[in-house]
């Protein structure tokens, strides 16, 4: 006990302290008291457990799927005198209406929509739950996982040197630099936990380079607090982390793998709770596999994809899917052999994009241990469409987005590649292509992000070779950024001239106050000039009143 605060005063303040409330001075007084008082430390532990239980209990509330319809219903009820045209971007989206299919007809996506074959997801019997557990496990409000730069280290020829991040000069054109990252840390992924500006908390994974080898081989977990990134818990030597999925402001999962030593890849999955993390090894995970991503719908429901090692002959093997339920990761069989994206939407429910062993592209809707294939089409050899993202807003409102390349040929230095947006919408019955012109996309737009409430976002970019005269590597630099707001596309200034990707974070953004994860790439040639190394890295960006602020570059 200290003279600063009595036990009774401290105990009374603990609920607000746990909830993150109170000014810095008061929080410090509480912390000072707790350091010297066993009784209040025990009390703190109790309140922490209660706070966690409240979060877990609230997480059983299913996601709100009526945001958009609710807004229109509300607007219709507002008194006439106050009515104005709605600025909701969904007005511009086709949403289930008949669409022109110009330009994208070649895909013939709707050739097989009626098949919707159902397949059973059959987990091994030993792990299969046979009864409902407690109340139905609902979903926490949709969590956004933006793992834009999953530290994609491309390789060519000899690749031993680390990307020289410290030497790179950010090509800032219109961004105020935020506080620097903790010393020596490079961000590798960014995620958001919670929804709305008050409950939104950003988390990130990072890597620290080994001073002896130069390889970024030490994992770090970061939390965005008071306008800066701070390290959470201890560093994780030998395990660089490259992805994170949070289920609340304090709990989540991070994963990574050491790709540098291909002879002995080491992968890791961490469970984060409060300020600590703990390694978790799900039963059935191939220890030589690497986690591709985790997508959680609530603290007690989510999905893990593990990429398995190649065979001795160098052939790829199917990825493994795991479902998290009742505190256990259970292996499940799925029609997909590889995965591009998973959108976890509710207890046991998710949308999955990927392909099967016969090279068909599949989009699967998984519910209650059943997988309904909503789309299956062959992947032709000369296919030039790459769908990479799924956004599920409602069972009859799911979007798949990606890009369409002008040709299947690789980019040549003399032939900069340009792309067009590839967009598909599922209305509950079938997938239909949506032409960019249906969205009145700006001329030259190459990629479109569907973001309810924060407008649609489009980018114009060009893909070129990074090193003059070489075919590889290439990068897709954004030339212009557009926002659809109040029914019209407006150009937004770019934060950097070397931006290679940008994802607006819907749950944290409104039309006038935008949070986004940007990407920038860093490539260097090796000292002998024969090879190169590099990758794409994320940065948290905030756009307000016409100005960008960057956090983490």
């Amino acid at each position, binding site marked *: 006990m200290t003279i600063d605060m009595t036990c009774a005063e401290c105990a009374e303040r603990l609920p607000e302290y746990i909830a993150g409330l109170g000014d810095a001075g008061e929080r410090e007084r509480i912390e000072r008291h707790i350091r010297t008082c066993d009784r209040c430390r025990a009390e703190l532990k*109790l309140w922490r457990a209660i706070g966690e239980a409240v979060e877990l209990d609230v997480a059983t509330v299913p996601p709100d799927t*009526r945001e958009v319809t*609710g807004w229109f219903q509300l607007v219709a009820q507002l008194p006439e005198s106050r*009515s104005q045209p709605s600025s909701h971007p969904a007005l511009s989206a086709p949403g289930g209406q008949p669409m022109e299919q110009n330009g994208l007809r070649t895909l013939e996506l709707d050739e097989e929509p009626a098949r919707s074959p159902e397949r059973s997801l059959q987990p091994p019997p030993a792990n299969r739950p046979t009864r409902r557990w*407690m109340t139905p496990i609902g979903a926490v409000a949709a969590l956004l996982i933006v793992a834009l730069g999953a530290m994609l280290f491309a390789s060519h020829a000899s690749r031993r040197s680390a990307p020289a991040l410290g030497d790179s000069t950010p090509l800032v054109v219109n961004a105020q630099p935020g506080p620097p990252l903790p010393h020596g840390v490079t961000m590798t992924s960014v995620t958001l936990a919670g929804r709305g500006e008050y409950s939104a908390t950003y988390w990130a994974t990072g890597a620290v380079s080994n001073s002896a080898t130069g390889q970024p081989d030490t994992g770090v977990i970061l939390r965005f607090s008071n306008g800066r990134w701070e390290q959470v818990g201890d560093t994780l030597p030998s395990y660089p982390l490259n992805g994170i999925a949070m289920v609340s402001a304090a709990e989540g999962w991070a994963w990574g793998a050491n790709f540098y030593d291909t002879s002995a890849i080491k992968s890791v999955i961490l469970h984060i709770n409060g300020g600590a993390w*703990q390694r978790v090894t799900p039963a059935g995970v191939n220890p030589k596999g690497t986690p591709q991503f985790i997508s959680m719908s609530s603290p007690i429901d989510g999905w893990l994809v593990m990429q398995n090692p190649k065979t001795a002959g160098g052939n790829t093997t199917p990825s493994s899917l795991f479902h998290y339920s009742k505190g256990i990761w259970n292996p499940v069989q799925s029609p997909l052999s590889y995965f591009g994206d998973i959108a976890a939407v509710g207890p046991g429910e998710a949308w999955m994009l990927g392909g099967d062993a016969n090279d068909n592209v599949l989009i699967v809707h998984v519910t209650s241990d059943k997988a309904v294939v909503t789309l299956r089409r062959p992947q032709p050899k000369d296919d030039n469409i790459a769908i990479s993202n799924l956004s599920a807003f409602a069972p009859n409102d799911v979007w798949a987005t990606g890009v369409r390349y002008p040709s299947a040929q690789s980019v040549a230095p003399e032939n900069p590649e340009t792309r067009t947006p590839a967009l598909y919408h599922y209305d509950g019955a079938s997938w239909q292509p949506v032409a960019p012109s249906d969205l009145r996309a700006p001329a030259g737009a190459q990629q479109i992000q569907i973001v309810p409430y924060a407008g649609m976002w489009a980018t114009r970019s060009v893909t070129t070779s990074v090193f003059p005269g070489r075919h590889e590597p290439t990068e897709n630099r954004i030339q212009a950024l557009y926002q659809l707001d109040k029914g019209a596309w407006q150009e937004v200034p770019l934060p950097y001239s070397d931006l290679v990707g940008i994802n607006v974070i819907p749950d944290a953004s*409104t039309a006038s106050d935008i949070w986004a994860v940007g990407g920038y790439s860093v490539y260097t040639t090796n000292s002998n000039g024969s090879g190169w190394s590099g990758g794409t890295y994320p940065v948290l960006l905030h756009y307000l009143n016409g100005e960008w602020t960057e956090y983490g570059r």
Partner: protein
Amino acid sequence: MADDEQALVARIAADDQEALRILYTRYRPRLWRYLWRRLDGDAGAVEDAMQATWLAVWRGAPGYQPRGQVAAWIFQIAHRHVAHLRRDTSRALEGRLRPRALDAEDDELLSAVNETGSHEERVLDRLALVEALRALSPAHREVLELVFHHGFALAEVAQILDIPLGTVKSRVSYARRALATALAAIDRDSAATDATLRERTKR
């Protein structure tokens, strides 16, 4: 942020629908969870209460007195609507507002899952605490949710619920006692299980 939101309310008072949309976007997810819990998952009633809340925000904006957070004002409106609804249909809602109980099957499953290692054990401890939480009265749970999930200070909770601060504190204190007792019981149970296991090992 508080200034920003008070400016938004002022804009709403001046018939600015865009300002309403910004607040709607910002708070609808939290209100959804709050109303879902108060109306025990009746999706239709939740949406009705949601609409009524935002209509009241629109109508009440001209008379808004800037004291405290705008968030607390919006939640206060939502709370009043639920309280009103509850008075109107008290008989119909009473049954549904009762906390759910676990059945024997769930217990069996939980104890089966309990044997699978440290991470799962911790999860189950938390689930047992959740169960104890659900046994609290709706009024006590509401206070805990407003503090821990929605991040309101106790004084704001008093404003939202239209009750004295002392009542909020006594609800917090009662909930703490009930949950501490439940937690102690969980610990006793696991100690007893450990003792039984030790006993078996000896034989």
